């Protein structure tokens, strides 16, 4: 039972991490809190749903849904975010609030209001026996995806020139400009990547959590909490925040069911009381 | 006015930014703190004004230990500061900025109902200060529309609006043209008749013109103290500055 709960918590944490990491790098680079991040997650899931039901292949959906979401992100960047980069940060936040409304109704107009679900691929549709308890193998796959993305991001940021440029742009945009780093380009790519990761989260968890209108708001608040607890703009913070919130939430539900609704908010409030800039300050 | 800085040290990780700094001032005077880039003068300034805390040592103001006082509390005791980068209320007029700056001193800031602009006493005070800093013709102009030099003057004006006992000036001539620098030196000279002043500056000419006592910092250490003429003669100081 404990092992199962541990895996559940880990799987939830990895979902949160996929979502939070996109939000946090966008914040780190552009100082924009993208409230529409949840909408991109929803778009990823819905696009995945369409691909899956049209081609009857989960893997096609798994590959192309994040790409489509990244393209939506790129579109938003060109039409909106590029123009408000130097605007008042509050105004940027509120603009993304308008995007939530648009996203909600667009999805409703295109895909209707029914709840849908995506079947896990045959390869992963069975359960694995872990110490006499069956555990769905697809959930292990979600953990795997999270860890894989984590390793990739770490490698890109720490070991490649592009990563160094990104880090420079985050830490000190003015110096980055002096060093002739094309910040515009970097912003564009990282923004799209962040959106793509949200889409990846959407399609990855769709076989477990389903696809339905309103799924954007549920994860938005959770993701924001993870980012704020971890420390906005910090990759490490996103990971720590996701693990903290994921485990507190999963174990809280089992051992303190009365507090299930408020426990993560309480964790966040306490974190900010003692560390007003989040756990990892850049 | 008495300011005593006793054995102040500060380090970031393994880097010692300040080591055992001692400064004493117990009369109305203008103290200059100079040193090359990275000497630690900005850190010292921030420790005196309360923005950052020293690791060791003591800051005393009028024989009172103010180590644990925040910027706000030090300001209320009479330690006022101006910033190296303009720090103004950009959406407010010159007059209103100055009125606000004195509203705490005259204990009206918690007033909920009497409009600020109808408080005649505060207005008079603001106009007087505007005259002092040479902005009497710009009273109704929004700060963001002032020329850079005038903004620097307003920066000083806000600092003196609360009639402080000690004025801390962080590079008051930063980014100014030679003509503007001349104006501001004149202004500070005028102010030094009324206030005790500590200036942090890397432009030596400015300090020579203003200060009657100069402290020279180098790599976190106090290396020289004396009058402008003594500093000018000092071989050590020349070596630090000119690398000879």
């Amino acid at each position, binding site marked *: *039972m404990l092992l*199962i*709960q541990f895996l*559940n*918590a880990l*799987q*939830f944490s990895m979902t949160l991490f996929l979502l939070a990491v996109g939000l946090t790098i966008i914040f780190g680079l552009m100082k924009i809190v993208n409230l529409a991040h949840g909408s991109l997650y929803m778009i990823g899931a819905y696009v995945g749903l369409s691909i899956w039901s049209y081609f009857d292949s989960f893997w096609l959906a798994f590959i192309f849904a994040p790409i489509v979401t990244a393209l939506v992100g790129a579109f938003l960047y060109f039409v909106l975010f590029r123009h408000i980069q130097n605007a008042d940060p509050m105004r940027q936040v509120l603009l993304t609030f308008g995007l939530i409304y648009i996203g909600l*109704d667009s999805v*409703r107009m295109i895909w*209707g*209001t*029914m*709840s*849908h*679900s995506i*079947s896990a691929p045959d390869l992963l549709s069975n*359960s694995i026996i872990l110490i006499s*308890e*069956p*555990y*769905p193998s*697809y*959930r292990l796959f979600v953990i795997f995806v999270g860890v894989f993305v984590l390793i990739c991001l770490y490698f890109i940021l720490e070991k490649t020139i592009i990563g160094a440029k990104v880090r420079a742009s985050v830490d000190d945009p003015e110096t980055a400009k002096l060093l002739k780093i094309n910040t515009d380009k970097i912003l564009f790519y990282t923004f799209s990547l962040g959106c793509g990761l949200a889409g990846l989260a959407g399609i990855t968890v769709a076989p*477990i*959590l*389903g696809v*339905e*209108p*309103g*799924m954007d708001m*549920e994860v938005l608040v959770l993701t924001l909490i993870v980012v704020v607890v971890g420390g906005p703009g910090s990759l490490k913070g996103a990971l720590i925040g996701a693990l903290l919130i994921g485990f507190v939430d*999963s*174990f809280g*539900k*089992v051992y303190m*069911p009365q507090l*299930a*609704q408020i426990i993560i908010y309480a964790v966040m409030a306490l974190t900010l009381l003692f560390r007003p800039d989040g756990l990892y300050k850049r | 006015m008495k300011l005593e800085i006793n054995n102040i040290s500060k380090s970031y990780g393994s880097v010692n930014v300040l080591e055992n700094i001692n400064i004493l001032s117990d009369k109305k005077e203008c103290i200059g703190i100079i040193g090359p880039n990275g000497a630690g003068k900005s850190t010292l300034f921030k420790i005196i004004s309360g923005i950052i805390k020293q690791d060791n040592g003591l800051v005393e103001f009028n024989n009172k230990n103010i180590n644990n006082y925040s910027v706000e509390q030090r300001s209320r005791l009479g330690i006022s500061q101006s910033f190296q980068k303009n720090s103004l209320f950009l959406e407010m007029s010159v007059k209103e900025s100055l009125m606000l700056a004195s509203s705490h001193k005259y204990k009206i800031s918690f007033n909920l109902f009497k409009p600020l602009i109808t408080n005649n006493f505060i207005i008079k005070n603001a106009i007087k200060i505007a005259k002092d800093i040479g902005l009497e013709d710009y009273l109704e102009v929004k700060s963001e529309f002032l020329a850079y030099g005038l903004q620097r003057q307003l920066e000083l004006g806000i600092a003196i609006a609360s009639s402080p006992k000690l004025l801390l000036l962080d590079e008051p001539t930063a980014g100014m043209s030679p003509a503007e620098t001349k104006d501001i030196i004149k202004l500070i000279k005028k102010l030094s008749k009324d206030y005790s002043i500590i200036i942090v500056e890397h432009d030596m000419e400015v300090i020579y013109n203003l200060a009657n006592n100069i402290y020279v910092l180098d790599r976190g250490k106090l290396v020289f103290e004396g009058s402008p003429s003594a500093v000018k003669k000092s071989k050590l100081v020349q070596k630090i500055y000119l690398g000879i």
Partner: protein
Amino acid sequence: MNIKNIIIKLFFIILIGFYSSSISYSKDNIKIGTLLPYSGVYTVLGEEITNAMSLAFDEIDNTINGKSIEIIRGDTEVKPNIALQKSRKLISSDKVDILVGPVSSSVALALRDIVVQTKTPLIIPNAGANILTDAKCSKFITRISFSNYQINAPMGTWLANKGIKTAFLLAPNYAAGKEMMSAFKENFEAAGGTVLGEEYTPFRKTKDFGPYLARVKDSGADAVYVFYAGGEAINFIKQAHSFGLSNVMKVTGAGWTTSPLFLPAQKEAAIGFIGSLNYVPSINTEANKLFITSYKNKFGRIPSEFAVQGYDSGKVIIEALKSLSGDTSNKDDLAEAIRTVSIVGPRGPLTIDKNTNNVIQNIYIFEVIAGKNGPELKVLDTINAVQAPGEKCNL
């Protein structure tokens, strides 16, 4: 030109726009106002109910005694305050004769006072809060759907009689979830069963049931009894399947959990679920077959129990109006006519309980089995003419 003039003109234009649009001119029609969600998470329920009701009206060419029937939609957005605003518009500006709605209980409770004060008959096509036909009952409020008690109580007795000794309860943490569980628990325990534990999950915030499922399995009960709807129902059923819950205990619950609306998404994960509901598509009567065919022809999908409730609401309205020869001028008579109607609908015979204004209907206990085109609901047992208690109601 004066600035004030411009502003005033601008505002008059806007305000006159909204003012004039809230006045409706046709007077001779019979107007049915709906207070249902057409946006937000429950949109699909609002659509099903409205579709099916219009189907009922279509069958009589939308006319009664020469008067045509007109449906005026009011979107509640599932928010009580918005529903109140819309009800005021429907009652005072559109002057509707009968209101049909809402879907959720909190909205119904918000509407309760205004319909009673204005004597506008309200037909409830879904909201199940027990109190609406108990302490808060009124002769102007008639419930055609169900009370939460009505659906779950028979199941408690039935399961206990079938040899289920212990159960674990799982439902969303809100009023309806708790009412359903307590109705089940009361009857289950009265029939000799034992509830080993109950857990209430954060409503509409629970997507991952993993932590709870581990808990349920650990309890070692003979059965788990649940109530979920919408995305939660889909997720629960699929996740329970992937954790192999049905290998160790019976998965049972209120029938919405495997509603025909959600079955296409749940697929074979739902097989084996035993539930109780006031309607299942496989009821073998002429009325039901006819209804399913015509609904499918018009809207292209199998109707759900929500559609049936909407259809029956339409039927009840038609019968009541017929008995008054289409005269809606006296609201008291209209309300009386509605509550004395009895019809045979797709779900079987319906009458209105004279004491509470709640519908008396059959409850079907079904099992999800594998069918030709995916899972189907097979009726195991029918409990006839189930009534809901309402001691605090004096009608």
